Structure formats: C-alpha cells, structure tokens
C-alpha cells in the first residue's frame, strides 16, 4: 500500500445472503486519480461502491482509506471521514428546495462555500428556490454532485453519473470530473466508455464479480480495449 493511496481494496468478497457477488476484488486509487469501474449490469460495480461506503459488510478482505480501515464503520462515519457516495438513482430530497438540499450538505461538513458548486454548475444558481423534486435528471445530478463536493471530500464514489442524461450534460460532467480530480480522488462506475476513456487514469473491468482487467496505462484506455471485457 503506497502512502498516497486514497483508497485500497484488497481481497474483497461480498455476498447477499447465500449469493456471492464480489470475488477477491483488488483495487486502489491514488491521490488525484480518476479510477473507473466498467462492466455489464450485474457485474458488481454498485455493490463494490456500497461496500466501500459501509452499506454492506464484506465476508472477507479489507477496504482502507489513507491507511485507515473503513470496514465495520457506519456509512455516516465513512462520509464524515471524507468519502462521499453519489448514488445512481438521482433521488434528491424532493420536498426540499435546491438551497435546502445544499444546506444539508453544508451543515454536515460545515462548508458553506457554495461558490465552488455554482462555478461547476452555474445553472443551480437560478434554481435555488425550486423544489428538488421538480428538477430534470441532469439538474438533479448537478445538485447531487454539488452537494457531495461540499466539505472537499478526499474521495468521491460516483455511480453511473451519466445514465439517462443528454449529451450536452454528459459533456459538462466530463469537464467537471476532470476539474474535481485536482482536489479529490474519483472512483466512477460507468458504462459510457467514451467518457471513461476521456477522463480515467485507471480502469477496472468487472465481470460477474471478478476483476477481469486493470488498465493503468493511458495508452491502453480506449473504448475498443475496454469493450472486449464487457
């Protein structure tokens, strides 16, 4: 384990009851890297992120962040340690306004610097008083990312961020992820291979709970290379 490893997953095995989902997963992400996990539906990508976040207990293996084990810690403790999870479902607190959603993020982290949020997503500025339930899918994703980056997390776990979004929003998110990587390490689960190849420093290809390949060389990270593992 290198000292600059923000996340190290070693020998991780996870089961849902009798059904084993992840088999001996090894993964690491260094400071400032964008690490992508690609794979078909059911490959275990979301399970991996949920286990890192503390929502699932592994049957074996370790998950550490800067040398500190995350296993056995509640999700809110992991979040307080600077690991933020942006789930796939794009569900925000629909009865609260955008402003109130951001305030929830701010209060938890004591970070009220919303300029960085509105710099990445200027559109949120106009939507502050709108109920989050009335936002479009893209706007919700902006809000979820904006809320998660409050407190300057050291590690962002992002689950299928571009699923169902318009190409223009995907392009915007691509730029945002690139910029965010200068401050945080990102682990992104994504099926959009052009996006992955444009931003990822390292790619893990998962299939049926196994890591089939680790592409750590930028030259290797191409859609056609990734596709053969899917």
């Amino acid at each position, binding site marked *: 384990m290198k000292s600059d490893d923000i996340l190290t997953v070693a020998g991780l095995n996870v089961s849902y009851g009798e059904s084993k989902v992840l088999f001996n997963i090894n993964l690491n992400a260094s400071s400032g890297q964008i690490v992508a996990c690609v794979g078909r539906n059911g490959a275990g990508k979301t399970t991996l992120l949920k286990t890192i*976040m503390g*929502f699932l207990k592994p049957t074996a293996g370790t998950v550490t962040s800067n040398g500190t084990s995350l296993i056995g810690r*509640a*999700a*809110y403790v992991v*979040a*307080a340690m600077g690991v*933020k*999870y*942006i*789930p796939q479902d794009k*569900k*925000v*607190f*629909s*009865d*609260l306004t955008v402003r*109130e959603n951001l*305030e*929830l*993020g701010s*209060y*938890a*982290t004591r970070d009220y610097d919303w300029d960085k949020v509105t710099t990445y997503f200027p559109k949120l500025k106009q939507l502050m008083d709108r109920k989050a339930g009335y936002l479009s899918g893209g706007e919700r994703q902006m809000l979820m990312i904006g*809320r*998660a980056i409050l*407190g300057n997390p050291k590690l962002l776990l992002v689950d299928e961020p571009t699923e169902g979004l318009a190409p223009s929003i995907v392009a915007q998110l691509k730029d945002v992820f690139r910029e965010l990587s200068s401050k945080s390490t990102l682990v992104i689960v994504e099926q959009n291979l052009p996006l992955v190849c444009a931003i990822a420093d390292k790619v893990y290809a998962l299939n049926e709970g196994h890591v089939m390949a680790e592409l750590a060389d930028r030259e290797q990270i191409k859609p056609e290379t990734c596709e053969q593992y899917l």
Partner: protein
Amino acid sequence: MSVLKWWSGLLVAFLLLALLRVFLPLPFANEIMIFSVYAIGCNFLLGRVGFISFGQPAYLAVGAYGTAFYLFYFGTNPYIGILIGIISGFVVSLAVGPLFVRLRSDYFALVNLALAVIIFFLMQKVLAGITHGDDGLWFLTRMDSTPVLDLTQPDQFFIFAFLIAFAVWAFYKYIDDSIYGACCLGTKINEDKLKFLGYNTYNIRLLAFVIANTTTALAGSMYAIYLGFVSPEITSPARVADPIVVTILGGVGTLYGPIVGAIAYTGMKDLLSQVFGNWELIVGFLLVFIMLAGEKGIWGTLAPVLERTFTRLTAPRSAPAPRTEPGVKGT
C-alpha cells in the same frame, strides 16, 4: 433554512382561535387547545419524520399521571404538576426511544400500541393501589389557585392553554424552518441519502421521538389540570387512533393541520354528537373521503385556495392602459 417568514400566518391562525372562543362554549375551546398540542406532536412524527404511532395515548397518559401523582400525593401547585408531567414524558420517551426508533414504520406503530396497552393495564390493574384503577385520581379540589393565571378557573385555563398551544406551535415552526427540520424530512424521504452526507440518522429520529412525545406528555398534563381528574381511560386502546385521525383530518405535515384537525374532530365529537348520536360514523366517512381525495386533509386542501385568493387580493393592480383617442397616435 430561511426564517424570514417566521411570523407569517402565525398570528392569523391563533387570532381566529381566540375569536372562536367568543362564539364557542368554553369547554369546547379548552379541548381544542389541548387537542392541538396533542396533535402537533403526532403530526411532527407522522408528517416530518415518517413515523406512524398508535401509541400516542401512552405518552399522553405518562404526562397526565405524572401531573396527577404530584397533585394527588405530594403538592398542590398545578404549574409544578405540569412541569413534572413534562419531565415524566421526557424520561419515558428517552427510555423507550433508543429501542423503538430502531424499528421501521409498521413495527414502530405496533410497538407503540403495545406500550399504550401496557400503560393502560398498569394504571388500571397492576398499580391500582396508587392509581385507584378505573375510579381514577381526583384532585380538582386539591389544586391551589395560582397567581396571574389561575389554572383552576376554566376561563383563565383557556388563556394558559392558548399561550401554551401558541408556544408549542411556534417551537415546531422553528424546527420546521431549521436544518434539523430538513434532516427530519430527509430521514422520511430517503434516509440513506442523509447517511451519505454524514448524518447519524438514528440520532435524528431519536431526538424527534423525544421532542414529539414530550409534547404529547405536555398535552396530557394539560388534560389532567383541566379536568382535575385522570383515569386509565386516557390511554384506552379504543382511543389510540385519535391523534392520527386528527392529524390526517387536518392535513399531515402541515403546520396548521393539527389545529384545524383538532377543531374539526372536537367539533364533531362535542357539537355534532348532540344532534347526531353516531358521530364517529361521520368521522369515518370523512376520513375515507380525505384519503380518496388525495390525502391532503382539510388544511392541505384549503391552503392552496387561500394562498391563491390572498395573492390575488394583495397583488398590486396594474395601471390602466392610457386611453388613446381614435385617430390619435400615442407619443
């Protein structure tokens, strides 16, 4: 959260209640005040945190009996009696809360119902030696007259109950506007999301449980002082749905809902029952209608209409368009 609209509507609602006092019989007005406090706690649990509890009479009884024990056995000051009732509610909800709030919605409802049944039988049978069982504890004549507001006088009790209801309402309005209120709503909408943000949702739920049930105990204390009598009937299994019915009637999750619901429910119970024996039947039909009409309750349905009317009335009138004479161009 914004607290700019802190006073919006607050005075209006309570001035209306004060006006009602002029037109309604005193016992009816007093009961509305107490029921409002009772329902506000239930409304917070149900509308803000997503907990449906069939055990609210348990906490009502804890407050009432806390007050009654003090006034029957130890002292004569009703204010101290109320304070003891509140403390009793706080202690009991803090004792059972850590266990109960771990349960999810349906089991939470049932475990609270079980507590109400336990307290009912404790007061009726097990502790009959000190509670006097079904005969109850009578202490109306034991209470001292108090300075400023004499709680032994129904008309002065109304002012006290009015001020308490006002303060409780304002307190919950403050909570609703606070970040804690948003957290409570967050646990109701999507608890996992709050955890992702770093919130300990268990603590949020526990605090909400203690606040709501201490409020319920306060209502119980007020009942005890007002009636000067407490019996196990207060936590009877037949009455467990009362606060939920009032909350749903008024409008779940709305700030004025508990007050409107208390007026509607008490109105039907006290006034309608004089002309129509089976008033519960009307409540039943009304509840079915409310559910089918979108679960908004009376206030939830009225509020948007009133808001639109108020906006229309207060909107500045646009200046009339300048008249132009035929054939003359405006400059």
